[in-house]
């Protein structure tokens, strides 16, 4: 009896000791990780500061200078702003068109590729891995790379940006779509197969109706991202509001009312489409 209780207390002590030791190691690892992280952040910051043209401490005091100049000039010529916003509206439409067209094209290709790359649905199972790797590569290439190369061949304009963004969208949406496809119920597909439906018919009638809401929801999210991307590509030289921004910006002082008008247009557009797409995404995914 005494033995047993001795053994019990000892094992409790053992357990406590082991637990405390584990906590200590965990804490030690945590502390090491924290020190490494802090060291990385500070050394990274110092390095980035050293390799930057203007220093951080110098710049931080001038950070409001440029926005201040823009705002001052915009306030001075506040009467121009509505007119300028109308003037730049066609460019904004072009930017939105680039985003919308590339989202649509990207989504269409992504649907086909994702169906071919889903394990239970693929028409040619040996193609699954190659298609996935292709989608990985498409996702990895930044839009700007393709856009710059295409500008060299096609000249500046919306098409280079459209192709570049579509390319990236295929990779990004393809991955998300194939994850959705994995979760689709196979019963309708099997039912269709039993009555002799072809692969296309099985996908069109058996899978797409199930996954369409999720597809649309992901595509809307992509559309938001693509609006930003298309504005940025414009700045690099392929049309739309980004290009106007660059032109107005490089004119410098005197054209800051235009800069302000474009900033405002871009900001309102992004916020507007964020809200709209968030609303419809909630509605779509809530319905499923």
């Amino acid at each position, binding site marked *: 009896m005494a033995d047993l209780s001795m053994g019990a207390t000892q094992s409790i002590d053992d357990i406590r000791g082991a637990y405390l030791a584990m906590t200590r190691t965990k804490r030690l690892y945590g502390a090491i990780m924290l020190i490494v*992280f802090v060291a*990385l*952040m500070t050394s*990274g*910051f110092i*390095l*980035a*500061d050293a*390799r*930057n*043209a*203007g*220093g*951080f401490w110098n*710049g*931080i005091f*001038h*950070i409001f*200078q*440029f*926005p201040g100049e823009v705002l001052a000039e915009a306030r001075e010529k506040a009467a121009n702003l509505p007119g300028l916003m109308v003037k730049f509206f066609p460019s904004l439409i*072009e930017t939105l*068109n680039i985003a*919308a*067209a590339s989202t*649509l094209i990207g989504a269409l290709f992504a649907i086909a590729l994702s169906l071919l790359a889903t394990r239970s649905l693929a028409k040619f199972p040996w193609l699954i891995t190659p298609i996935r790797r292709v989608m*990985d*590569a498409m996702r*990895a*290439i*930044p*839009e*700007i*790379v393709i856009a*710059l*190369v295409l500008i*060299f*061949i*096609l*000249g500046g*304009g*919306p*098409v280079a940006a*459209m192709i570049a963004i579509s390319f990236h969208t295929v990779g990004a949406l393809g991955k998300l779509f194939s994850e959705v496809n994995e979760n689709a119920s196979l019963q309708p597909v099997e039912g269709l197969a039993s009555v002799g439906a072809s692969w296309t018919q099985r996908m069109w009638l058996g899978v797409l109706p199930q996954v369409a809401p999720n597809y649309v929801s992901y595509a809307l999210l992509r559309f938001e991202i693509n609006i*930003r991307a298309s*504005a*940025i590509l414009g*700045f*690099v030289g392929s049309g739309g509001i*980004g290009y106007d*921004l660059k032109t107005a*910006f490089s004119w410098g002082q005197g054209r800051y009312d235009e800069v302000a008008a474009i*900033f405002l247009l*871009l*900001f309102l557009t*992004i*916020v507007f489409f*964020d809200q709209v797409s968030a609303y419809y995404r909630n509605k779509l995914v809530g319905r499923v």
Partner: protein
Amino acid sequence: MAMLDATEAPLDDLRRAADAAFARKRLIGFAAPLAVLVYFAYIFVAFNILELAERARMDNAAVLVSDAYSYKTHVTHNNRTGGLTIAVEGEKKGTYPENMVPDFVTKTGDDAAQITLSKGYTAQIDGSSLWLDVPGRGTIHVAVEGRNIILDAPATIPPNWISASKARVDITTPGGRAIVTRARTEVFHYAFGWELFWFTLDSPFYGKSLGELVSLAMHGPPLVQGKGNLSAMVSDVWNNEMWRHKDVMWAIFETILMAFLGTMGAALVALPLAFIAARNFNRLAPVRFAVRRVFDFVRGVDGLIWTIILSRAFGPGPLTGALAILLTDTGSFGKMFSEALENVDNKQIEGIQSTGATPLQRYRFGVIPQITPVFLSQILYYLESNTRSATVIGAITGGGIGLLLTQAIITQKDWEEVSYYIVLIIVMVMVMDWVSGILRRRLISGGNDT
């Protein structure tokens, strides 16, 4: 009877509802593809695709593609001062020294050389005169006489190979290319590969095979005074002037640095703000509202505008890019973190509270363990996607690999460098994707699951 009525009426209703639903489905089934088609037709017109097809410079595309995997060596006679130079891509850094000649050139005099081109073509330069021997078609002869350039081509040569004027003769053949102007007589020799990628011509290791290099590195007589062969090789590759490996690697590093500093900085700033913006941690509705609007504003302004504003204050460089990413992602992280905080499970917090924990301990043991995996996985996901954004931001502000890429594309001739950078960017993004995937899995599942 009454029963029957009761069931019949809803049955009719049901049927009508089903018919309506079918009609709606059918409409959507046809209308949606039709709408997409109409939109594409509009885009086709709005983007002027037809005109674009005419405007497209397919010759540029051909130059780009062939330049990406091949290189050319210029053999040039200077017609004003005399003298023959041989240079890779015609660049000063790639000029062969006096006593060195590539194997397709035979020097027959100070100003004369025999050049073996591909497909059996040969060329000969003697002073300012050029003979280009086309197999089966005869020899093209070009000579500079006074202020005129005299072309003598046999009739068998297709006319679209040659564009000639009094001041310039340009011969493009499947085997090689030659240009004669008053200033110089020049032959281009094309070959497959990226020449001088490892060692430039002034390096003693140039032209050695891999086996020779390995044996030199292991136990060879030192080729560079006062240096081991291996370290000399590494330094020659690192300081290669043609391909600038040192600058390129620094640029890649800068790009990753931008993404790292920006993402981690944003997470650090967003974390405390997210607590303020979460309903269950902050009872002051106006403060919550204000912080949320700050998040929305920062996100809505977008990386492009932040980059422009910041580059005015900080100048070009990696710090500007890092700060632009930091600002934009503070908004995204703040939104996501505060939503995650509002969804934490209260049982754990109440359990901790029941043991008499202070508020700080409640956060430490009740909240942090719940949200850490979610937050870390989002941060890592953003780190990967920001590597891509940092390339773009670098192109706008001027920093990192984005800058090198735009510079190389603007010169419109170093396409082999462009393709080198593109390959590096893709590898960089894929490596970041892979690393962040591994870390995500380890952090979320504690490394049990792969």
